[in-house]
C-alpha cells in the first residue's frame, strides 16, 4: 500500500477528512485537481449562519479546522438574531475568500503525515467489494486502505449560462470527467443535482453610498472554542432590492434560461432559488432583497447574494442594471448554474462508509448536500470514521439530539435527498439543546476519544464549565428586583448585561460565558422539557439492529417496509422508524424480533 488513507478532493470536506486522518496518525494522501483551488469559497464569501454556524462550532469541538480558518480570515462578524430565542442565535462571518483559501492550503502543507498531490481521480480500484486504490487522469494507480471521496460539483460537472454550457465544475475550471461514469458502471446510485451562483460586480462601479449599510458586531466572538476572541477588521455589507422592472426583464427572457428550456435536468435547491425561480414562483412579490457582500479586502469583487442566475449574460447585465445602486455596475464574473453528479446517500451507513464498497467513505456535495459547513462536518466525520476503521474501532455516529451534524447525516442516509440538502434549524427536533455556544460541551469529549482533541482541550472545557457555575452561583446569591438575580434573569425583559451593572463581579467573566449563562437560565424550563423528549427518543436509538439482519425472515412486515429496510439497513430502531413509509406495526415486529434475538443470545 502506498498510503494508509487517501482523500479525493481539496474542498471543505476534503480538507477536514485529510487533516483528521493525518492528525490521528495515518499516512495520508490528498489528491486534488488544482492545488490553487484548495479551500476555495466557490459561492458566497461567508461562513456560518443559522444552524450552519452551529455546525462550524461542532466541527471545532470535534477537532476540525473550519473554525480556525474563518477566525483568521473573517472581515465581518455577527451573532445573528441576538434579540431572538436561543435556538436561532448563530454566528456568521464574512470571509476574505483569498485569505481563507490560502490559510487552508498552508494548514494542509504544514500537517505531518499528510501529502498533497495534483491530479484528477477518474476511477476507483475495487477488489472483492473493498476499495484498494484509485486511478488518475495521468494514469497513476495509487493504493490505500481507506479512501474518502469528496468530489464537490466537479464529478461530470457542467456549467450553464443561458445558451452557453461547458464541462466545468466552477467557471473555467474543468470538470472531473470519467469518475461519475465509472461509478455508474460499478453500480453506485448516481444522480444529478444543480446549484447556482450570482454575478460578481466591481465595487468602484457600484453606488454603495445610496444603499442601506449592514455593519458587523463591535466585539467579534471566535468560532473556535480554543481561544477567547479574535482581532480582525470589520467591513460593512450593503442591502438593495430588485424591482418590477428587474422582474419584467427576467420574465420576458425566461425562455432563454437553461432551467426553463429543459437543458438542466438536475433538481436545484428550493430554499436557494435563482432569481428567475423566485420571479416565476412568487409573481406577487414586487421586490426581492439582495445582500452585497465583499469577496475580500484586497479585491474589488462584490458578491450579489440573492440573485443567482443562469440567464444569458446580456439578460443578467440588463436586469442587474435596473437595481438601485447597481445601475452602472461592471459585471466581472457572470452568474451561472452548475449541474453535477451526486451519489444517493442512502447507499451509505451513518458512518458515511459505503454499503457497496468497504473502506470507501463519501462526504460533502457528493452526498447531495450544499454548503461549506455541511461539507466540512461530513468530511470530518468521514475522516474520523475512516481512521476508526483503520484502528478497528467503532465508528463515531452522532445522534440527532447531539449535533446538527448528527441530524444532517441521519437525514441523508435515512431519507436520501432529491435536491441539494442544506441544514436548517427546523430540521432539528432538539434544537434548544443544539446551541452554538454549547457545542464544546456536547462534543469535545468525543473529539478526544477519537484522538483529535487533547487533554488541554478537555481542561479548557472543564474551566469553562466551572466558570459557568461560578456565574450561576453569583446570580443565586445576589438579589435583583426583589428576587434572586438567578430568578430575575428568567424574566423575558431582564438581560445578563443589565444584571452585570448591579453585580460588578460578573465583569470578571468573558462575554461568551455570560452569554451562555443567560441562555441556560432564561430557557431552563423549555430546555428541560426538550430533554424529556430526548429521553423518549433515545430509547429507540439505543435499540441496535445488526446491519446484516435478514428482513425476509421477519414475518408480518409490510412489503414497502421490507423493501426499504433492506435498502437502507438502519442501525437502530429509531433510525428505522424515520424511514418514510414505515408503519408502527412494522416497527413493532422489528422490535420483537430484536428482543427475541437478544433473548436467545
Amino acid at each position: 500500500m502506498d498510503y494508509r488513507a487517501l482523500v479525493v478532493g481539496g474542498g471543505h470536506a476534503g480538507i477536514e477528512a485529510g487533516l483528521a486522518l493525518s492528525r490521528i496518525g495515518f499516512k495520508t494522501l490528498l489528491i486534488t485537481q488544482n492545488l490553487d483551488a484548495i479551500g476555495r469559497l466557490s459561492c458566497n464569501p461567508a461562513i456560518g449562519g443559522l444552524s450552519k454556524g452551529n455546525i462550524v462550532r461542532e466541527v471545532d469541538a470535534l477537532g476540525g479546522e473550519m473554525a480556525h480558518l474563518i477566525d483568521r480570515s473573517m472581515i465581518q462578524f455577527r451573532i445573528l438574531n441576538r434579540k431572538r430565542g436561543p435556538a436561532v442565535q448563530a454566528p456568521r462571518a464574512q470571509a476574505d475568500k483569498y485569505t481563507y483559501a490560502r490559510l487552508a492550503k498552508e494548514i494542509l502543507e504544514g500537517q505531518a503525515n499528510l501529502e498533497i498531490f495534483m491530479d484528477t481521480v477518474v476511477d476507483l480500484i475495487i477488489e472483492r467489494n473493498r476499495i484498494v486504490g484509485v486511478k488518475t487522469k495521468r494514469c497513476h494507480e495509487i493504493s490505500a486502505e481507506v479512501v474518502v471521496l469528496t468530489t464537490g460539483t466537479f464529478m461530470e460537472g457542467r456549467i450553464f449560462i443561458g445558451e452557453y454550457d461547458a464541462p466545468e465544475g466552477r467557471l473555467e475550471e474543468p470538470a472531473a470527467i470519467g469518475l461519475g461514469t465509472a461509478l455508474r458502471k460499478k453500480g453506485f446510485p448516481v444522480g444529478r443535482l444543480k446549484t447556482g451562483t450570482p454575478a460578481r460586480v466591481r465595487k468602484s462601479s457600484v453606488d454603495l453610498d445610496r444603499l442601506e449599510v449592514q455593519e458587523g458586531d463591535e466585539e467579534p466572538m471566535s468560532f473556535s472554542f480554543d481561544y477567547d476572541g479574535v482581532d480582525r477588521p470589520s467591513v460593512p455589507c450593503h442591502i438593495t432590492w430588485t424591482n418590477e422592472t428587474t422582474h419584467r426583464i427576467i420574465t420576458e427572457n425566461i425562455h432563454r434560461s437553461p432551467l426553463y428550456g429543459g437543458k438542466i435536468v438536475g433538481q436545484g435547491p428550493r430554499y436557494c432559488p435563482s432569481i428567475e425561480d423566485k420571479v416565476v414562483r412568487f409573481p406577487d412579490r414586487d421586490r426581492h432583497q439582495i445582500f452585497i457582500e465583499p469577496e475580500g479586502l484586497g479585491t474589488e469583487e462584490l458578491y450579489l447574494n440573492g440573485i443567482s442566475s443562469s440567464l444569458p449574460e446580456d439578460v443578467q447585465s440588463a436586469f442587474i442594471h435596473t437595481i438601485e445602486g447597481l445601475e452602472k455596475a461592471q459585471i466581472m464574473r457572470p452568474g451561472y448554474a452548475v449541474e453535477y453528479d451526486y451519489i444517493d446517500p442512502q447507499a451509505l451507513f451513518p458512518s458515511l462508509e459505503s454499503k457497496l464498497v468497504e473502506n470507501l467513505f463519501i462526504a460533502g456535495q457528493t452526498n447531495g448536500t450544499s454548503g461549506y459547513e455541511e461539507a466540512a462536518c461530513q468530511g470530518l466525520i468521514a475522516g474520523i470514521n475512516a481512521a476508526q476503521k483503520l484502528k478497528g474501532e467503532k465508528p463515531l455516529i452522532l445522534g440527532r439530539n447531539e449535533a446538527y451534524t448528527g441530524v444532517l447525516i441521519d437525514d441523508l442516509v435515512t431519507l436520501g435527498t432529491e435536491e441539494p440538502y442544506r441544514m436548517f434549524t427546523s430540521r432539528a427536533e432538539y434544537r434548544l439543546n443544539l446551541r452554538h455556544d454549547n457545542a464544546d460541551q456536547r462534543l469535545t469529549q468525543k473529539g478526544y476519544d477519537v484522538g483529535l482533541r487533547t487533554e488541554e482541550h478537555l481542561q479548557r472545557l472543564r474551566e469553562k464549565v466551572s466558570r459557568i457555575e461560578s456565574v450561576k452561583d453569583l446570580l443565586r446569591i445576589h438579589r435583583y428586583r426583589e428576587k434572586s438575580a438567578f430568578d430575575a434573569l428568567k424574566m423575558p425583559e431582564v438581560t445578563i448585561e443589565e444584571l452585570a451593572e448591579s453585580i460588578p463581579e460578573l465583569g470578571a467573566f468573558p462575554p461568551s460565558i455570560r452569554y451562555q449563562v443567560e441562555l441556560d437560565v432564561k430557557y431552563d424550563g423549555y430546555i428541560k422539557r426538550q430533554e424529556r423528549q430526548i429521553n423518549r427518543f433515545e430509547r429507540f436509538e439505543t435499540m441496535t439492529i445488526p446491519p446484516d439482519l435478514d428482513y425476509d425472515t421477519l414475518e408480518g412486515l409490510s412489503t414497502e417496509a421490507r423493501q426499504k429496510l433492506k435498502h437502507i439497513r438502519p442501525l437502530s430502531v429509531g433510525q428505522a422508524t424515520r424511514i418514510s413509509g414505515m408503519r408502527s406495526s412494522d416497527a413493532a415486529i422489528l422490535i420483537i424480533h430484536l428482543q427475541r434475538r437478544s433473548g436467545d443470545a
Partner: protein
Amino acid sequence: MSRYRTDDIIYALATPWGSAALAIIRISGSGSHALLAPYFSKSEALRSAKNATLLHGYLCDQEGRRIDEVVLAVNTKGHGYTLEEAVEITCHGSLSVITELLDLLSSIGMRSAEPGEFTFRAFLSGRIDLTQAEAVHELVEAQSPVARAHALARLDGGLKEKLNGMKNTLLALLAPVEVQLDYSEDELDEFVFPDELLDSLLDDLGRLLASYAIGTLYKSGARIVLAGATNVGKSSLFNLLLKEERSIVSPVRGTTRDYIEADLLLEGIPIRLYDTAGLRESGDEIEREGIRRSEHLIGGADLVIHLLDSTEEDVDRAFDGRTIVVYNKADLRRPPEGVLAISAATGEGIGDLLSEVARRLKRGVEGVDESRIVIQSKRQADALLAAEAALKGVKEDLQAALPLDIVAVGLNEALHHLGLITGEVTPNDILESIFSNFCVGK
C-alpha cells in the same frame, strides 16, 4: 410514529364495556403496587403482597371517598401475564364504577393501554411464544390503532377530514414560525403571529372534544340522582322510571337509608339512576350515613332531579345548573304555574320530565352534529386534550412575548399529539410546507 412504551404503567378494562355483575381492570408495570396502594383501603397489604395474593378492600378516589368494594389479584415481577409487576382489580360491573376507577388510574399517572399492549409486553418479556403465527398476527392487529394508516382508514370520513383540516391549520401556524427560525431577522419580512388562526384552531379542538362528550354520553352514559327532602316521592318516581318496583316504597320518612341504583335507557343514552336517602336532619347514625352518601352522589352526578312536594310550602333554595326542579304529587295539589310538575303516582307529566332530562343531558354538546358523533375513543380524546393544552401554552408564551423558537416547542408538541391520531408529521413535512409557501432568503 408513535411506539409502545414499555417503562410506564398501563391499565385497561379486560371485560366488556357494559353493565355486568363484575368487571376486571388490569394494571401492569413496574411500580404499579406502590402507585395504587394509597388508594386501596389496605395500603400496606398491597405494598408488601406476595405473588398470587388476593386482597379484599375498597378503592377510594383522590379525596378518599370509596369508589367500590374490590378484590385485587396481585402479581409480582416475573409472574402473571406480562411478567411485570401487576394487579387485576375485580370490581362491580356498573358503568359508573368502571368509569370512576379508570379515571382514578389515569389521574394517578397510569396510562390507558393501547389495544394489545398487554400482549405486547408479554411478548417482550418472553412470556408468549413468538413463533406462533397467530400471536404475531394478533400483535399486528393490536398495533393497528397505533398504526395511523389503519386507524385513519377506520375513522369515519367526517372525522378524518376534520382532523386533517386541523393538522393543516396547525402546519399553517407552524410553518411561518419555523421559517422564522431558518433565516436571520434581516432576511425576513416582519412577522405577525396569526392569532386568529390559533384561536380558530382552539375553537375547532374544543368542538371536537365536545363531540367526545356526546360520544361518551351515548357510550358511557350519565349519572342521574333523584334528590329531595324525605317523603317527596323519590322512590315512587324511581320505580316509575324503571317500571318495576325496585325500591321499597312506603310513606314513612327516611325509608331509603342507603342509595339504590339501576340502569335504564333514555333516547339511546344509558343512564344510571340513583334513588337516594332523603335529605333532612336525622339523629339516626345509619340514616346520617345514608344522607352523607346522597350528598356525595349528588356531587358526582351529571344531572340531579330535585323533587319538591306540591302539597308542602315552597322552600327557597338555590340549585345549580345540573339540577332539574320537579314538583311531585301534582295530582294532589296544583303546583305553581310554569314549573315542571309530575305525579309519580299517576304517571302524569313523566313524558315532559323525560324529554327535559334528555334535553339537559345533551346540553353542552349542542352544536355538535349528532349524526357525526366523532371522537369516541379515550385515546383520541386524550391526544386532542394534550394538543389543546399545548396550544393554550403557546397562547401564554405569545402573550409573554417569548421568542419564536420557544413558541415552536408548544406548536410542535400539539402537532405531535394530533399526529398520534392522524399520522406522523416529520420535520420534512414542515419544510415541505415552508418551501411551497415562502419566498425566502439566501
